């Protein structure tokens, strides 16, 4: 019974990782850059929802909409201001810039909201589901899992079935060739960032609902874990991010429950190394032959 409980705890943790990893992997898959500020956009989303809910009369949908819009604008703006000027330079420069953006966002949040953790508003009251005497499944976990699945399916449809999706795939394969074929590369990358950031806002919402407290550093640790999850599942692969996130959460929670709480992160990373040794592109990553 306790095994199932730990498994459920892992699923709940994993679904948050998966939701964040989706944004990571999508931006990486198309813009070919690691947006390390993704975790902090989650934090911005959570704080926007927090502020909107407490100042705009507490209508949850208005608050969530505010969070989505703010994150989308922020994501597109960061891309335009911080990443676009470096598009031609080495990937390392963009990576460092992304880390810079991450610290910038944390510091701004620290300035505005201070360091104390804030209680996140209970926008929906989701009652836990009890099975038998001992098994409790949090309502938030089920909703997070469901939403993550729906979003995953939505992104896959968008990429594979729509015109903008085709443009994204083209940009992902070769920016120069895509431009020559009449694809608006700038617009496509902007849209990618917009969607990625909207996903971050959703992740912020569910993080807040699950853990009840948010702070300026809320996004950083889950952001790193989600990045690991994305690599685990094969970075660039949408279902890979989902599977990677869930597996990561389950492995983490089971090692906390049965091996050692202090070692759990170490075990997670050991599993990552093992996977990468056996399958260097991650669980679902595709090996793309470089043509010279």
């Amino acid at each position, binding site marked *: 019974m306790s095994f199932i409980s730990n498994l459920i705890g892992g699923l709940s943790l994993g679904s948050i990782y998966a939701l964040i990893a989706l944004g990571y992997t999508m931006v990486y898959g198309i813009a070919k850059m690691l947006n390390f500020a993704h975790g902090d956009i989650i934090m911005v989303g959570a704080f926007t929802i927090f502020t909107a809910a407490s100042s705009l009369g507490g209508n949850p949908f208005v608050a969530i909409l505010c969070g989505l819009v703010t994150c989308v604008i922020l994501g597109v703006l960061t891309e335009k201001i911080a990443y676009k000027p470096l598009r031609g330079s080495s990937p390392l420069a963009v990576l460092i810039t992304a880390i810079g953006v991450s610290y910038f966002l944390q510091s701004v949040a620290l300035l505005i909201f201070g360091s104390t953790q804030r209680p996140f508003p209970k926008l929906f009251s989701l009652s836990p589901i009890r099975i038998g005497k001992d098994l409790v499944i949090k309502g938030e976990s089920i909703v997070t899992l469901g939403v993550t699945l729906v979003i995953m399916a939505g992104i896959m449809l968008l990429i594979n079935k729509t015109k903008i999706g085709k443009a994204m795939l083209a940009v992902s394969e070769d920016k120069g060739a895509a431009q020559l074929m009449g694809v608006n590369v700038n617009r496509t990358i902007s849209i990618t960032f917009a969607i990625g950031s909207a996903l971050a806002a959703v992740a912020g919402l569910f993080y807040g609902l699950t853990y009840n407290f948010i702070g300026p550093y809320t996004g950083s640790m889950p952001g790193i874990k989600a990045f690991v999850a994305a690599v685990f599942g094969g970075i660039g692969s949408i279902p890979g991010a989902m599977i990677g996130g869930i597996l990561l959460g389950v492995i983490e929670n089971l090692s906390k429950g049965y091996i*050692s709480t202090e070692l759990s992160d170490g075990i997670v990373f050991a599993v990552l190394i093992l996977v990468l040794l056996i399958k260097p592109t991650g669980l679902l990553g595709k090996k793309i032959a470089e043509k010279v």
Partner: protein
Amino acid sequence: MKKAICMLLVCALLSLCLVGCGNDGNSDYTLVIGGIGPTTGVAATYGTAVKNGAQLAVNEINAAGGINGMQIKYLFEDDQHNPETAVNAYNTLMDKGMQILMGTVTSKPCIAVAEVAREDNIFQITPSGSAVDCIKYDNAFRICFNDPDQGTASAQYIKQQNLAQKIAIIYDKSDVYSTGITEKFEAKAGELGLNIVAKEAFTSSSATDFSAQLQNIKNADADLVFLPIYYEAAAYILTQSKSAGLETKFFGCDGLDGVIDQLGEQNAAAAEGVMLLTPFVATAEDAKTKKFSQDYKAAYGEMPNQFAADAYDAIYTIKAACEKANVKGDMSVSDICNALKAAMLQIEIDGLTGKMTWSANGEPNKEPKAMKIVNGIYEAM
């Protein structure tokens, strides 16, 4: 011409000297007391409370004529609960002429600062740095209980009040405060025949999700969870234990102070019945506490916590020791320290946090008290 200017300058210097000599006594000097603590960062509640509590005491003392005729100049620097920042803050204060150090507020930074403070031989009194090593050198004293004492006292209290038979512990393995209390608690609990059925750890990087730990505690069928941790992590544990259907009592130490504010109105139910060892309750009825709470509320708009009280007591302790040692403004930092070290062993303070005397190791001698959260406020047990 040049000569004339030179002469004039010399004359001016001489006359300045004479003025200085002619006016002896302490009223020319100020006593610079420096404070260090986190006013931003994860432990900001503590640092802000200490800063404000000490300021209140300084204002009172200055209004009443100061210490030995000297006005206190009180400077405070933020350390963000970070050892490196704390050492920088210490250096900044030394540059500004600090003579006595009241701080730091939290254990880890305090240990780092203790090292440099010893080199300068400056008198240090920490209101709330409770790790043993905070005052391992003889220039340092403290107002609060140390960690082992809190652990020992908690176990004793649980046994005396017969609060539980089967105890679980959740502690922060990456934090010296938490591990210090846990060790002593375990030792004392073993001695008293209390049964520790689960001991669950977390680290500062994994302090948000406690489902695995709570599940293990549930499996162990504990009836009390001991939380020797700070209030931020405790807030996660308390809310998550509610949703995990864990129905145990919770007992913590001074780090839990602040958990009511942290949980906020919407999670207030999670704090109900939580017990903690704390030397000070703002709602107590004695005249001293009443006046302090009123003044504090008037000045800062909120009720003081025990950290504010510790800091208030620390400033009055410095005053009493300075008066006992007859500290003069022209004494060097090191001389002041040597004089105060001897005086600390002779004074007795009847402060907000209890009647205190000090031993040569810097530890205060006072009685532990415990509180319980009932309807969102602390109530004496």
